[in-house]
């Protein structure tokens, strides 16, 4: 399919920057965040979004050189939050989500799936379609 990039949804960039800070787990300058996110983002866009996140209290910042370095507030080592997250994940995995109220990004894999996905990541090219999906043939 030739999808046209639609650009980000509202709040998309805020989420991405937050995710980036969480993944790196260290104070980052707007320049570093921009480099990490890649793409054609303007420096000022990243800086504006970071200061908006700071105003909302989602990130903390400290003086670093001439500018600021931003970090995720709370930090990944927050004990109580970690416990809550554990409980939530147990709810998901231990059959607690019997009704399936949470939609998860990934599910469990069959050995076939695992092979297919490993191949995909290895060459990054198209995967040979050895199933009936999504052709109109018999299931």
């Amino acid at each position, binding site marked *: 399919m030739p999808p046209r990039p*639609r650009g980000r*949804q509202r709040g998309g960039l805020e989420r991405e920057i937050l*995710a980036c800070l969480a993944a790196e787990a260290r104070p980052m300058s707007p320049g570093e965040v921009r480099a990490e996110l890649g793409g054609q983002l303007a420096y000022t866009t990243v800086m504006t979004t970071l200061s908006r996140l700071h105003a909302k209290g989602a990130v903390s910042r400290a003086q670093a050189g001439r500018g600021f370095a931003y970090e995720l507030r709370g930090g990944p080592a927050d004990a109580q939050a970690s416990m809550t997250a554990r409980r939530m994940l147990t709810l998901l995995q231990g059959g607690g989500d019997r009704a399936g109220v*949470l939609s998860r990004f990934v599910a469990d894999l069959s050995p076939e799936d695992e092979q297919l996905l490993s191949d995909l990541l290895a060459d990054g090219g198209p*995967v040979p379609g050895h199933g009936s999906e*999504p052709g109109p043939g018999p299931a």
Partner: protein
Amino acid sequence: MILLGLVPILCSGLLGLAAGPLRRRLSPSVAAPLLALAALATSLATGIVLCLAGFLALARNPLVAALGGWSGAGLRPWRLLPATWATLAGVAAAVLLVSALGFLAQVTCDLVRASRACGRLDGAAHRLRISPDEYPAAFTVPLRGTIVVSAGMLRLLPADERRALLAHEDAHLRRFHAGYVMAAALAAAANPLLRPVARQVRLAVELWADQLAAREVGDGRVVARALARASLGANRPPQASGVRLAAADTDVSTRVRALLSCAPRFRPWAAAAAVALALASGAVALRLTVDLHDQVEIAQADSARVLAHQSGDLRGYAPRPATAEAGRWTSLRVTAR
């Protein structure tokens, strides 16, 4: 008339069998709402028909007939339904109703629990909460409208795939995907024949979110890679994982193939088939309800006529004590005619 009652059951069976093929022939944004609504309609119709049959089993009981003020023998066209079948249908209706109510209770409980757990996570901006967990996980919490991603998942993915993941989860929230999934699951709880439909709706919703994420990022392959990396990471957990869900729960390879190939063309007949099944069962349920209602009214009038005849006067008769209430009502009806 009796055979007509089988139509909703037949339709649910057909919808269950056709769910997979229909989903494959429709774009996910059409398949998810369509299948969910069709499942709800057929499930409701099946429930109504079973309840009617169960009511009939009760209505023939002389005691109930006396209470309701109709003659059990008056429900003539319905006499063809054997009493054991009617009783069985009534029991099935009760069991399925309890199952549906149980499902609703469970969903409410799980939603509230998940939402509460989510509320205790450290705050973040714009519907995103990051759990400081190392285990790679990502999901949406519908009641709260929040995306939860673990730090482990974010570390696993490069920036463009993180964006794809966030776009996928955001699509779930924006398009109210949880609603379709819950509706189909409720229908399946009330009618086990529709279980395959619920599974297909769940898959269609994932495909739909993948599609929207691919559109936002501009490349389906990025979404496919994110999916592959996340699935492989999540399936090699650092700790022993708990109960495993069925492999067919959300078919990852189906999603990857869909992302890497062309979108299916819109096939109107596939959509029409689902609509037809829903409409047929709905129409039958309505028809049978109206019909049974008419029959009960006729039987009530019959019973009143008999009573009036016994007392020898159409207007000022003294009703027998056992049917005093029924007699009062039906005498009004008879004098009105």
